[in-house]
């Protein structure tokens, strides 16, 4: 548990808009570490650059400064914010998509995809096209697809952000169960304090733009967790208060 999986040092990212000749600093001197097998949530207001940090970790965006060290044999898998399920493929084909790109044989692919459909509760929808699925089901497909080629690090970019609260609660519980069985290293982005405390071993709090890490809080609850029952714990609400206080103290509206 003590081995480091991800090490981010002084990570800075800025965007330049040629039309208005303006430079925007999206993330500034971001520093954190994630241990192998750890579940870390980054929480922050929208526009704070948390998604940008994750996209840089995923290799989808270049960094301007600083360093990233990923101690892993394979590139991280990503679960995206919105419906990222490919509409022209069935659920089965979507989940097997990364394997099919690598030319894994159809039989092996089928066996592995079946495993994941079972794990994510999608077995009954294997041959459906995504437009027949609810938002929650689509995000299950995204999660299954990210797990299919068994990469060590899982990056999740507000995967449940667009779902209603009941569905979100169900998927959080499922995600915890899956994480406990697979033992992946997870970096999970959210703007929901509640979600971060429900899922994470550690919560990193980010300030508004230019985003930087302002706190690193350990979440003490035992595992396996029950996403409903843990709300009876006073520590849950103390931590909620603590995170909100941090977020409020850096809010630009307050200082304006």
């Amino acid at each position, binding site marked *: 548990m003590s081995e480091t999986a991800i090490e981010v040092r002084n990570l800075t990212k800025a965007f330049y808009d040629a039309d208005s000749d303006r430079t925007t600093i999206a993330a500034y001197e971001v520093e954190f570490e994630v241990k192998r097998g750890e579940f870390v949530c980054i929480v922050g207001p929208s526009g704070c650059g948390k998604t940008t940090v994750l996209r840089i970790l*995923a*290799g*989808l965006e270049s960094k301007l400064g600083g360093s990233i060290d990923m101690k892993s044999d394979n*590139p991280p*898998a*990503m679960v*995206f*914010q*919105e419906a*990222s399920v*490919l*509409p*022209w493929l069935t659920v089965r084909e979507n989940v097997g*998509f*990364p394997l099919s*790109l*690598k030319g894994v044989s159809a039989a092996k692919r089928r066996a592995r995809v079946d495993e994941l459909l079972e794990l994510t509760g999608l077995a009954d929808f294997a041959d459906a*096209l*995504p*437009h027949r699925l609810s938002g929650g089901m689509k995000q299950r497909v995204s999660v299954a*697809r990210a797990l299919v*080629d068994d990469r060590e690090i899982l990056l999740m970019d507000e995967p449940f952000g667009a779902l209603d609260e009941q569905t979100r609660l169900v998927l959080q519980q499922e995600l915890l169960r899956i994480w406990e069985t697979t033992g992946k290293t997870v970096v999970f982005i959210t703007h929901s304090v509640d979600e971060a405390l429900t899922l994470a071993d550690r919560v990193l709090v980010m300030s508004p733009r230019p985003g930087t890490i302002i706190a690193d809080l350990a979440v003490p609850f035992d595992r396996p967790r029950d996403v409903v029952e843990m709300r009876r714990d006073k520590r849950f609400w103390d931590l909620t208060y603590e995170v909100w206080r941090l977020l409020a103290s850096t809010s630009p509206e307050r200082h304006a």
Partner: protein
Amino acid sequence: MSLVTAKLTEEQIRELKAPAQRERLFRTISYFSPILLLLLWEVASQLNVIDRRFFPPPSAIAGTFWQMITSFEIFDHIGATLRRVSVGYVMGAIPGILLGLVLGLSQPARRVLGPIFAALYPVPKIAILPLILLIFGVGDASKFVVIAIGVFFLLLYNTMGGVMQTPQIYLDVAKNAGATRLQTFFRIALPSALPNIFTGLRLAAGSSYIIIAAAEFLGARSGVGFFIWASWQTFAVSRMFVGIVVISALGYFTILALELIERKLVPWAKH
């Protein structure tokens, strides 16, 4: 298992079904409205309200049509036209789609080649037919080429537009899943652009028949266009109408066939 037993009254169910029933009635009527027009034409022509020399009654046109079917005369012309359209169509569509994919995905390619195609596209295809006849002769080759040119541009622009509309997230998914450039090309950009490609295919089918008719007026000894032109020269108006009906029907059925294929291949798009 439901916790509440719910039941609607007969009247509520009737009210619920009413809009669907009305819709069905109008759909039935819609099948017959063209027949109504033909009937009106027939009567007007028989009573000499419209000039019979220009608008012979549909029954007379149908009679001529029937003669031409039984004598197999019409089939030679249909065969010639269909052969020219289908060969030219494929010759134009495949490069149009491939180049559309390249231009859609690569901004440098778009910057360099875009202006060239933009300058060539507005040239009327019929206007360059004499030039094409000069280069490729009066045989089928010139017809293939002129149709291919028309089809090419429609597919180039529709495919390019479709690829450029590919949601960034699909490209991110491909990259994260480890797709190569070629895989991104064929497994993301192509399917994502498929609805637009079919729009292009349908537009191209329509314009193919416009182009072939004009091309056959000028330089052909067979085909439906030639047949319309030859009928005009002998003032055989009924035969002209047969030609017009046949070429419209060919276009209609081609587009219908494309729509059926689209439903099969693009089941996720709204129809």
